[in-house]
Every structure is written in structure tokens, then in C-alpha cells.
């Protein structure tokens, strides 16, 4: 498992306490899980994603991510409609481990309230929550 200073946490993303990240992408946002989350889970074997068209509020569960011995729920950082899901993850769930911020993205949403992005944690805020839990 990685030490805190080994974690990759891009500056231009925002984070949640539940270890999701959000990034502006076109008119919407892309969402995935952080390097901390993938490191803690270990080898990811399956990702369950919602259907395109589903509309979910912030903090609602949108899917699950499984490693061999654990299941973790995935929660919406912002409210919105699912525009796209990363279909590559069905055959290659390991992308979440190897490239959690780029190839391992999970869903793309059209936000209901784009301002919600501002109230998410910055990189330093997120690091605080991890340090606190450790």
C-alpha cells in the first residue's frame, strides 16, 4: 500500500470524502475514484456502472467497484444525468488501478447544479481527510 506522499492527486480535480474525483469535461464532468481508493481496494475485478440516461442526486450511489475480497459503493459527487459510462471497464477493470484519472474514468455527467463542483474538496482538503482517517 502507498504512503500518503506517494499518492497521485492532480491539482485540477476536486475530490469527495468517499474518494471519488470530478473533473470538468466539455459541458459536463467526468467522475472516477482516486489513487488512494484504487490502492486500498487492491486489484479491481469488476465495476458496476449505471445506465446512460439515469438521473441521480449528489451523494446517491451510482455503482459499485469490486476487488477480490471487497465491494465498495460509488457515490455521485454532483447531481446530474449520466451521459456516458466507460465501456472499456467491462473487459478491463484493471484500468482503474493503472490509470484512475484518465483511462480509468467511470461516468460522464451533465450536471444539474454545476456550482456543486466548487463545494467539493480541493487536493489539500482531500489529503486532510485521508490523514485524519489514518
Amino acid at each position: 500500500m502507498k504512503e500518503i506522499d506517494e499518492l497521485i492527486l492532480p491539482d485540477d480535480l476536486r475530490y469527495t470524502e468517499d474518494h471519488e474525483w470530478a473533473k470538468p469535461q466539455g459541458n459536463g464532468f467526468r467522475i472516477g475514484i482516486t489513487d488512494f481508493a484504487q490502492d486500498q481496494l487492491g486489484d479491481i475485478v469488476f465495476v458496476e456502472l449505471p445506465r446512460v440516461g439515469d438521473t441521480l442526486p449528489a451523494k446517491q450511489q451510482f455503482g459499485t467497484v469490486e476487488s477480490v475480497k471487497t465491494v465498495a459503493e460509488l457515490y455521485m459527487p454532483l447531481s446530474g444525468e449520466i451521459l456516458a459510462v466507460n465501456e472499456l471497464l467491462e473487459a478491463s477493470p484493471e484500468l482503474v488501478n493503472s490509470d484512475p484519472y484518465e483511462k480509468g474514468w467511470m461516468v460522464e455527467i451533465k450536471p444539474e447544479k454545476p456550482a456543486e463542483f466548487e463545494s467539493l474538496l480541493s487536493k489539500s482538503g482531500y489529503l486532510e481527510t485521508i490523514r485524519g482517517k489514518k
Partner: protein
Amino acid sequence: MRYLPHTKEDIDSMLQEIGATSIDDFFSTVPSCCRRTQGMNLPGPLTEWDLNSRLASLSGNSERKVFVGAGSYEHFIPHVVTSLAGRSEFVTSYTPYQPEISQGTLQGIYEYQTLVCRLLGMEVANASLYDGASALAEALLMAIRITGKKRVAVSRAVHPHYRQVARTYLGPSGYEFIELPYDSSGTTDLSSLESMDSFAALALQSPNFFGCIEDLGTASASAHHKEALFISSFTEPLAYGILKNPGLAGADIACGEGQSFGISQSFGGPGLGIFAGRMKHVRSMPGRLVGETVDADGRRGFVLTLATREQHIRREKATSNICTNNSLCALTSAMYMSCLGGSGMRELALLNHDKSEYLKRELQKAGLRIAFQSPTFHEFVVEFPPGFESEYKRLLKNGIVPGIPLSSYYPELVGHYLICVTETKTREDMDALVKEVRP
């Protein structure tokens, strides 16, 4: 007592080493309000020799000719199966959570899963459930999970106990349980299906409780036409040594009882819940799954896999609560299937069928009415004339059990008896039975 190795010296030495004065010290955390006020009132202890006598007298005499099936079948069990299944490395091991020292069980169950798939024409089978009844209940719950619909349709020709168990499982969640009637041919009447509101699954049993072979293909198509899953249940897997299998008919789930495959009847249990489905639904399947993989040196090995469906990880969101299943029975059935082989299965199935046909025709010649005209496998329903009950009792006293009366299960079938013939009955046995029951 020979199962308790500690001598007084052992106990004293152990207590001394850890600084305790008596075993009672360790129970200091048990409040007195929780303790027994008196010793346990139990018989024994019996010596091994007295135990043998006691059990011998309880087990009694078993010399009888039993022409009964109805979910439990008398088949010859090759001694080689009993001998191999009795090896203590199989018997005294537990669930293979540590795969490196459980490769025997794991490969054995992987082979079992594969043989079940081949027999039933399905894509994936689990490592066992408790019995055919709970397997049907789990299949219905799985269909409800997959489709999101809250209603199921189950044929009345499915084993009455299986329907009772399914109702018990489905009851608390308020799912609707619709029973479809059977018609005069002895098979399920699907005509009400078309006008039924959306439902999760249609479940039939074939051969059904009356021994009649159902038209699985038509049932499957009807279910799919209504966007429901088709569940094909069975109590006698040997039938698939000859009959078209559920997979060919398009079943989404095939489930039933595997006791016929090398497992003693044992007064109803332990049996074997066989459960098979499609790969696309595998993450909704209950029960354990053994998968193939490689070890650190690249050698083939087997492990329990997709465990995230199960209770120890998913807890209240698990696909089932099952933990201990019927693993040794599954292994036993694989041993039995290996003994038979595909050709042997076919030959034995035909023998069962033909013996049953022989008895059926002899009873007809003797003037008795066969209730249903549909083709049967090795069970069929006979109607005996009024007053047969006293004959039945007389035959029991002579150690012959000529079927079971159906009226307690199907009140409209008074005087009807379900008779089963397996390879264990000789022509002489059958001729003797006909002689006794002819009107």
C-alpha cells in the same frame, strides 16, 4: 473419553504454564444469572458397543420393495463411489478458503460444476445448494432480482414440497406466487400465461411430479415472450441421460435435486441442490463458484471466485445467505457421473424408462387405469379402484410399498397413486406387485 486427549497432568501443566488455578477461572466472565442451575439431563455416555446396539435397533429392518419416487429415488450406488467419497481428506476438510491445501476439493467441485453444465446444457453451475426445493426457491428469488418484477408463475405439477418451500422463501417480501394448473394429459396448462401481468419467471418441473415429461421448449418460448425468465426444475437428473436438456430448450436457470447420483436416500437428506444458469447472470447467482486460475509459477490451480456475491463480503446485499452447502454430496455425484459416463447415463436412463414402461403396461393389462397419457420417464400415476386403501395396508405389512397416494397433495386425485420403478426393481418384483394389486 477417547475423543478428549487431555490427561489430568496435561491440564495441570497447561494451567500452571499460564498462571491459572482452574479451568473455572476462564469462565469468570460468565455472569451467574446466565448459568445452568442443574446438570444436563441426557442419556449415556454409551460405549461404542452399546451405541452400535442402540442404533441397530433404531435403524431396524429394511427388507422391503419400495415403488416410490416423488423426489427421492432408489438407485444402485457403486461401492467405489462410497469408498472414494469416504476418504477422510474429503470428509474432514472444510470450505476451501485456503486454496493451496484444498486443491482436491476445488478441482473435484470444478469438475462437478462442469459435468452439471454438460448434463443440463447450461453455461455455469454453482458448487451446490442444500436440495432441489431450496434451489427452486433461490432460482425464483434470482429471477426477481434480475427482472425487478414481483410475481412468479409456478406449475402445480412441480413437487408439492418444492412449492411449499418456495412460498416460505418468497412470503416475507410479499411476492406474488401464481400456480398454473395441469391438464388431463398430466402436463402444465400454459394458456393463462398470455393474459398474465408481467412476471419475473415461469417455473416448470420435468419430468414433473406425476412423472410426465413437460414441453420445455414451448414453456421457455412463452416465458421469454412475456419477458420473463424460464426456470426448469427437476427431481430426477438421470432423466437427462436421455431427454432433451433444459439448456437446449432455452432455460435461463436449471435447478433441482441431485440425490439420484450416488447419494443415499437417507430419509430425505442430505441431498444435493443442483443450480445452473447463464454466464450473463452469473453475478446474480447464489452459492459458491470454483474457478480456474494459475499459481505464482504459472501452474493450473483452482480457487473459490466471484465471492463478492456472497454473504461474507456483501452481507445484507448478498445474492443468498448460503455459507455451508452440500459440497461432499456434489463431489459424490461427480464420482457417480464419472462411473457412468455419458454412454452409461444413457443406458441406465433407458433401463429405468423401460422397466417403468413394463410395469405400466402390465398394470394396464390387469385392468387398472393409467391416469395421464403423456410420455413419462420412470414414474407414473395409477388409479386404483375404491377400497384399495385396505389392500395398500396389507401390502405394507408384507413389505411392499406400491407407490404413494396423491390425495393429500391433490384433493382432486383421490384413489390415484404415484409409482416409481428404477433399475433396482427386477421383472420378478414387478410381476409380484401386479399379482398383488390386480382387481
